[in-house]
Structure formats: structure tokens, C-alpha cells
């Protein structure tokens, strides 16, 4: 029996559900390619944040070879989607989510924001919208 997969840490899950091809003529949509969250995160860290594979692997708490494998699979899926015009759906994978910390500029408290689809971030304590994402990682919480 294969060894169970280690859980991959996802700091920023996608804000959308997936992609659909734009066509010249109406056609029936073929079954979507399922892009796992870990593959999305690998693509995001490598090609959007331009991190090196070893840094990205540390971020996802997996080994560098594992990261390379996930990234390879992600690229192949995206390429297949582009070439064949197949929709992409973000879904599943052996992952767990962490939310980032935000800081309120008015009362100075820290909080996390669970509903990623809600773009308005309000301080849960003083209701101020004068908040920002905290880049400083709170060491005791990592």
C-alpha cells in the first residue's frame, strides 16, 4: 500500500472556483480538469510570487522534490486546459488551510480573516475598516 500523502499547507486559497475557455462558437463544455489546491499553491508560489522551489517547498511544509512533482503536475494540467480548451476547476488535494493575520491600525489588535470571498475586512473588535495585512509573522503562532 502506498504511503499516505503528507498534508500541504495552503496560505492563500484561490478566490475563484475555476476557469472556462472563451470559444469562437458555442460548444458543449467538456468535463473540467481538476486542479488540486496544492497544485494551485505551487503554481502561485513559483510563477506568481517568483519564489525558488526550495523556498516554496518550505512554505508548503513539504520536501523540495515533492514540490517539484506537484508543480510539474500543475503546469501540465494548465497546458492541457489551454491547448484542448478544457475548463479548470480548483478542488481538493491533500491540503490544509491557514489564514493570514491582519492588524487593525486603530486599536492595534491582530485577527484572522476566515471568509476569503468577503473583500471588506473590518476589525472584529472596534469595527474599524482601517486594517491591513500583516507581513510580520507572529512567531508564536507558527
Amino acid at each position, binding site marked *: 500500500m502506498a504511503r499516505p500523502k503528507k498534508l500541504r499547507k495552503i496560505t492563500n486559497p484561490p478566490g475563484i472556483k475555476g476557469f472556462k475557455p472563451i470559444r469562437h462558437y458555442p460548444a458543449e463544455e467538456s468535463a473540467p480538469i481538476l486542479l488540486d489546491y496544492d497544485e494551485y499553491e505551487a503554481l502561485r508560489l513559483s510563477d506568481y510570487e517568483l519564489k525558488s522551489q526550495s523556498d516554496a517547498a518550505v512554505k508548503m511544509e513539504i520536501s523540495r522534490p515533492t514540490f517539484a512533482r506537484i508543480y510539474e503536475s500543475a503546469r501540465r494540467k494548465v497546458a492541457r486546459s489551454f491547448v484542448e480548451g478544457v475548463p479548470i476547476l480548483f478542488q481538493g488535494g491533500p491540503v*490544509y*488551510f*491557514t*489564514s493570514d*493575520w491582519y492588524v487593525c491600525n486603530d*486599536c*492595534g*489588535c*491582530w*485577527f*484572522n*480573516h*476566515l471568509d476569503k470571498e468577503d473583500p471588506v475586512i473590518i476589525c*472584529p*473588535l*472596534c*469595527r474599524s475598516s482601517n486594517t491591513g495585512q500583516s507581513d510580520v509573522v*507572529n512567531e*508564536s*503562532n*507558527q
Partner: protein
Amino acid sequence: MKIAITSSGNSPQATLDSRFGRCSYFVIYDTESGSTEFIPNPNKEAMEGAGPASIQLVASKGVEKVVSGEFGAKVKAIFDSLKIQLVIVKDCTMTINRIIEMVSKQ
């Protein structure tokens, strides 16, 4: 909505407890009825696993937010999966009264 606040004493004049898992008391505040309930923390002297045990306690009360001075390493991932929001207040001299005042002012 119910909010859990970690407290160092069992009165509203007590200050915020800086630790989550091993705080002295949990205050369960209900924003709709305005009621507060003080629960002594049974995990205060626990050697280990105080965080997860305390999560079970506050989660069983149906809270949606937890206010404390600090959260341990194991705690955050569990709260994330339970969809309970965490609020860290760095200023531990704040009294429970003051925090309740802040969260109830909508």
C-alpha cells in the same frame, strides 16, 4: 453571536489573560442577549494539550470569535478548521468590561 474572551479573574473588572489554553477563566459573551458567563478553565494546570482541550470547551459553547492575548502553535490550525475567528489583543491590561464594550458597539 457568542464571543469567548480569556480572563484572568471571574469578574468583569478582571484583565484579559494573555494565554489561551491555560487562562484562568473563559468569558462567554452573547452579543444578542448581552449576557456574560464566567467559566473556570479546567485545563489551567494541564501539562500538555491545554489548547485543544480549551478549544473543545469554547467550541461546545458555540462561539464564533475568541479574544485572547496569544494563541499556541496547535490551536490556530484547529480554530481555522472550525471557522472560529481569532483576535489577538496585545494590550493585556485591558479589562473584560472594556472588551465587551468594544465588541458590543456595532
